[in-house]
């Protein structure tokens, strides 16, 4: 079929604006009702689900944290027993890393990247739907196992032999390992979508040097996911096999090795930190110019810093193993590589400060979160340099110093920007602004509460308090600080509660925002809030890194796309020259069915290796149904 065969009225140039929007809305719509909800492939709807789910997991993980602080507030406390406490801290860590931090960052990417690059849907939208269902199934699996007293109790790092066949009785560690599989499949799917979206679906003219920094950060993050997650997949699969079918990967008596687990886990685990952190700095790089009212200073160094961080991320994993007795020369190499990550981090911090320096800052809530981020994250970065030093690390490794360090990095470095980003992009998600007045309270409570809660933990570490202890005795002098920490955590909890209240309230009753409430420069603000199902009535054409600032009144766009099928523009990787009018798949139930079949197979395989054989058949059928052409206009080429 060629383009001549298509009647002219289905081209966007041939119809007036209102008709165009109506036709596009019909073509790209998600049907109402349950069927629509189960079949949708709209990146915005899926990302919103991802975000809501991730924040629910944040709240659940937060409750676990509060329980831990309750137990540790006093020495020899018997609020929780050791078995329950071990499940709780394992759940807290696994939940926060795998069910909150990574998915929430990817969800921001799924929502924003297609809008920021000016396209109509993410690449492989059905894979995107599948990804969400897998994530949801993994999260439910983990929490259900916890509710059934089968919650993993081996730490989020699940070191063998404690998690292995001999010492990890029952199915607890298997549920942990399989939850990993669920969330990794979901994360890998999103990573592929984002890479291809960024490579191929950028608006015409958005050459590499015009890509918004958040998009760059999501691109680097996606590559980190692609390169790092296979390591944990191999680790968790071999762990399950050791436990279920008696392989010997981690059995030293039969040629296996205990440290092999740690190598595999941290080869994933360290990049994991940057998988969470890089999107956050991307958010900061988006918010800083908007509120400094000045284009970002040092675009190229910032991009290079992102890429450098991504590369270095794979050269640091051994610094989690400094006390395992590895050769000392090798350890010194990893000291150097770990510390060198401070250079790209420093570049970014200096560039942000320079941007603020040269701008005229507008102190709205998102910027306040950025400032809280700078204050807190730099402390976390400093303590990161400290633990990179082998001798320093031998004293603080596996103590509360490290607990403090990574909460400074993950909450200060990632959650603060994320909360700022929620305030910043909330109007785009919902069409309504969050409350500026409550927002200031949220920043204040979270910032003060956080620092009061976590700073003393550095000192507890120096005083010799190890991590992962369910209680401590009267003869060690940790009681006063622990009580202080527990009390401070009330302030932090109050801040998060207020944040949730503000978000829920504003989603229903917030002030209507308009297209571009902050006067920002990037393409997501060039369409309505929330965007229509087709994102842009015409695909934008870009000739500047800050298109909405260089031409504030009119948006240059491209015409000539069909409106009777889901169509978008595919452009070249470097220059973003148009290459094809590609179709984007329509709604489908098959991703959900495939996810269900995969869920059955994965859960079953905890109990029987044959699940891999028999459970694959429904998956194959579902995939065939997914792939088989339905004769819609989207299949035309």
């Amino acid at each position, binding site marked *: 079929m060629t383009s001549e065969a298509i009647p002219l009225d289905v081209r966007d140039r041939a119809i007036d604006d209102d008709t165009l929007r109506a036709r596009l809305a019909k073509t790209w719509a998600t049907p109402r009702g349950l069927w629509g909800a189960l079949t949708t492939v709209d990146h915005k709807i899926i990302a919103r689900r991802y975000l809501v789910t991730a924040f629910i997991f944040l709240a659940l993980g937060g409750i676990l944290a509060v329980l831990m602080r309750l137990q540790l507030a006093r020495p020899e406390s018997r609020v929780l027993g050791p078995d329950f406490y071990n499940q709780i801290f394992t759940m807290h860590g696994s939940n926060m890393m795998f069910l909150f931090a990574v998915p929430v960052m990817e969800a921001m990417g799924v929502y924003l990247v297609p809008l920021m690059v000016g396209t109509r849907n993410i690449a492989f939208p059905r894979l995107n739907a599948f990804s969400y269902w897998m994530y949801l199934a993994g999260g439910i699996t983990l929490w259900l196992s916890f509710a059934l007293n089968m919650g993993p109790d081996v730490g989020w790092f699940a070191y063998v032999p404690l998690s292995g*066949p001999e010492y990890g009785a029952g*199915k607890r560690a298997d549920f942990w390992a399989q939850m990993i599989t669920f969330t990794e499949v979901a994360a890998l799917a999103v990573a592929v979508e984002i890479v291809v979206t960024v490579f191929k679906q950028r608006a015409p003219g958005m050459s590499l040097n015009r890509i918004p920094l958040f998009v760059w950060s999501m691109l680097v993050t996606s590559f980190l996911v692609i390169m790092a997650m296979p390591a944990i997949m191999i680790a968790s699969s071999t762990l399950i096999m050791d436990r279920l079918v*008696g392989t010997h990967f981690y*059995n030293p008596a039969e040629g296996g090795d205990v440290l092999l687990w740690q190598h595999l886990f941290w080869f994933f685990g360290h990049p994991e930190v940057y998988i969470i952190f890089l999107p956050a700095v991307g958010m900061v790089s988006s918010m800083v110019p908007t509120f400094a009212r000045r284009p970002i200073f040092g675009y190229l160094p910032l991009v290079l810093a992102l890429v450098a961080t991504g590369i270095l991320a794979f050269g640091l994993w051994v610094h989690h193993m400094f006390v395992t007795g590895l050769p000392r020369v090798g350890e010194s190499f990893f000291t150097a590589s770990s510390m060198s990550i401070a250079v790209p981090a420093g570049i970014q911090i200096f560039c942000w400060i320079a941007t603020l320096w040269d701008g005229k800052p507008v102190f709205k809530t998102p910027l306040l979160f950025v400032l809280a981020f700078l204050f807190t994250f730099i402390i976390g970065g400093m303590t990161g340099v400290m633990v990179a030093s082998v001798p320093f690390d031998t004293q603080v490794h596996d103590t509360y110093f490290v607990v403090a360090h990574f909460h400074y990095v993950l909450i200060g470095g990632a959650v603060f920007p994320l909360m700022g980003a929620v305030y910043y992009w909330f109007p785009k998600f919902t069409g309504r602004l969050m409350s500026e007045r409550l927002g200031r309270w949220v920043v204040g409570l979270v910032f003060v509460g956080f620092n009061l809660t976590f700073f003393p933990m550095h000192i507890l570490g120096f005083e010799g308090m190890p991590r992962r202890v369910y209680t401590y005795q009267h003869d060690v002098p940790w009681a006063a600080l622990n009580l202080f920490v527990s009390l401070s955590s009330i302030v932090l909890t109050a801040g998060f509660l207020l944040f949730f209240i503000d978000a829920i309230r504003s989603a229903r009753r917030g002030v209507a925002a308009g297209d571009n409430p902050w006067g920002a420069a990037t393409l997501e603000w060039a369409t309505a809030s929330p965007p229509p199902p087709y994102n842009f009535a015409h695909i934008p054409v870009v000739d500047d890194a800050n298109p909405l600032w260089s031409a504030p009144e009119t948006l240059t766009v491209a015409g000539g796309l069909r409106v009777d099928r889901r169509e978008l523009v595919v452009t070249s990787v470097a220059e973003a020259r148009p290459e094809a009018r590609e179709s984007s798949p329509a709604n489908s139930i098959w991703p959900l069915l495939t996810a269900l079949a995969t869920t059955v197979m994965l859960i079953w395989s905890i109990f029987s290796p044959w699940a891999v054989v028999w459970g694959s058949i429904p998956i194959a059928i579902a995939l065939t149904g997914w792939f088989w052409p339905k004769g819609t206009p989207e299949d035309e080429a």
Partner: protein
Amino acid sequence: MAGIVRRTANPLLRLLLIAAATMALPACEREERTLRLAPPVASALDGVRLMPIGIGGAPPEVYSALEKPFASNAYDLSQGKRLYNWMGCPQCHGDGQGRSGPPLLDGWWQYGPDVVSVFVTIRDGRPGGMPSFRDKLTTEQIWQLTGYIQTLGAYSAKTAAPSRDDGPQTRPAENRAPAAALFDKFPEIR
């Protein structure tokens, strides 16, 4: 749980709750870790009644009342496996395939597969070399060991059965039903 079910008016919700509870209870039992057995329960668990012939009998009431603890609880079974090694059982029974003592893996036992028989065999010993462990193990530990021995001789593995040890391997682990792989269903009577 029952209270919640009774208070719930909506029949569909009630049905769901009951379904969830029936699914949940076996799981809870299988993974529960009872770290401290109350002393009265422990001593009551010692009261097995053995048939005069020395084979089979009735477990104490508390055993049934607790819905056969130790038989399918993953933690107890793994403790039983550790006790098997710690108490020197392998010296005579090997990895379960027998040595100077009879094999335990084939599930074809002289005094039968009944829990009471196994319990009494461990506690009191048997003529022909099986020593008494009454002075070496507590009642709870003997029950853990009993539960483990039963998974050792099972032809179809329980999901709660222990996995392999971090040691030299001589046979598939209990969660893979080694008896089915290593022995015929009806081995010779020794």
